[in-house]
């Protein structure tokens, strides 16, 4: 791959995916990202981390952002740049995430109280642990946007 344009600017190569909001389809995004990361030369351990992070982000978009509405799409942009891969996961925002509620550390103790069924809530924490940069914002179109960056270590 040539990594610079004739003007010396970094070349961006973008793969765009549009998925229905149905659990299971996060695997399509995981495998597409894995394939691109392998092509870029990422270490296998980093590829596994990337797959886990994307799987969590797309699952969140399906479950929370689009509320399992299969007519709503999850858009995944994979942008390959020199030395890094940028991943944007955007939903249609049927439910906008309360950014103040996205804790940096999951509150573990209540989840192990007797009778507590929901073991979820680890996704964002896991994404932050696995990726080099993470931003969670509201997209221009009104949906939730998770932007993740993973650096290619030489």
């Amino acid at each position, binding site marked *: *791959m040539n990594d610079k344009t004739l003007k010396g600017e970094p070349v961006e*190569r973008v793969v765009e995916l549009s998925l229905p909001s149905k*659990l*299971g389809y996060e*695997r399509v995004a995981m*495998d597409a990202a894995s*394939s*691109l990361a392998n092509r870029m030369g990422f270490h296998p351990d980093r590829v596994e981390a990337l797959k886990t992070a994307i799987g969590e982000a797309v699952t969140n978009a399906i479950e929370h952002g689009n509320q399992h509405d299969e007519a709503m799409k999850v858009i995944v942009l994979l942008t390959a740049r020199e030395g890094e891969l940028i991943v944007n996961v955007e939903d249609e925002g049927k439910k906008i995430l309360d950014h103040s509620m996205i804790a940096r550390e999951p509150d573990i103790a209540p989840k192990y109280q007797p009778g507590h069924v929901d073991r979820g809530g680890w996704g964002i924490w896991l994404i932050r642990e696995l990726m080099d940069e993470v931003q969670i914002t509201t997209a221009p179109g009104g949906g939730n946007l998770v932007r993740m960056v993973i650096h290619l270590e030489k």
Partner: protein
Amino acid sequence: MELSFPSELGYEVVARDAVAAFARCVGIDKNRIEDIKTALSEACINAIEHGNQFDANLRVMVTCKHNGDHLTVEVRDQGMKEYTAGGKPLTIEEKLAGLGPLRGMGLMLITELSDGAEFVPVSQGNCFRLTFSVLQPAICHHS
């Protein structure tokens, strides 16, 4: 499912792996998925090489639909050049006998591996539609 990528050789592998994951998700047999992967890769390479003439600024679009008993995959390019097969393709034996170039087997391979393969009219570019019969019930396994 829809996917698009730049017209650069190698990106057909990304499309192949995404469509294979989609096919697994809807419950297609793993041997049939290998056929789909090979046929799709050939179709994408044709779009990159012939339709978009290796121009990385142009895109290849892949659409994948499952309707219960069929998987339909469309591969579209932005049509720098209308793609034509150029008559009846030579057989492998004819090619090995030196009667033609060793390349140019893509369409024959696609036709052998799919249940339907045809160019369909679109306003711009080339659109190649592949159809695969699906015998298994649709099952989507959450990761």
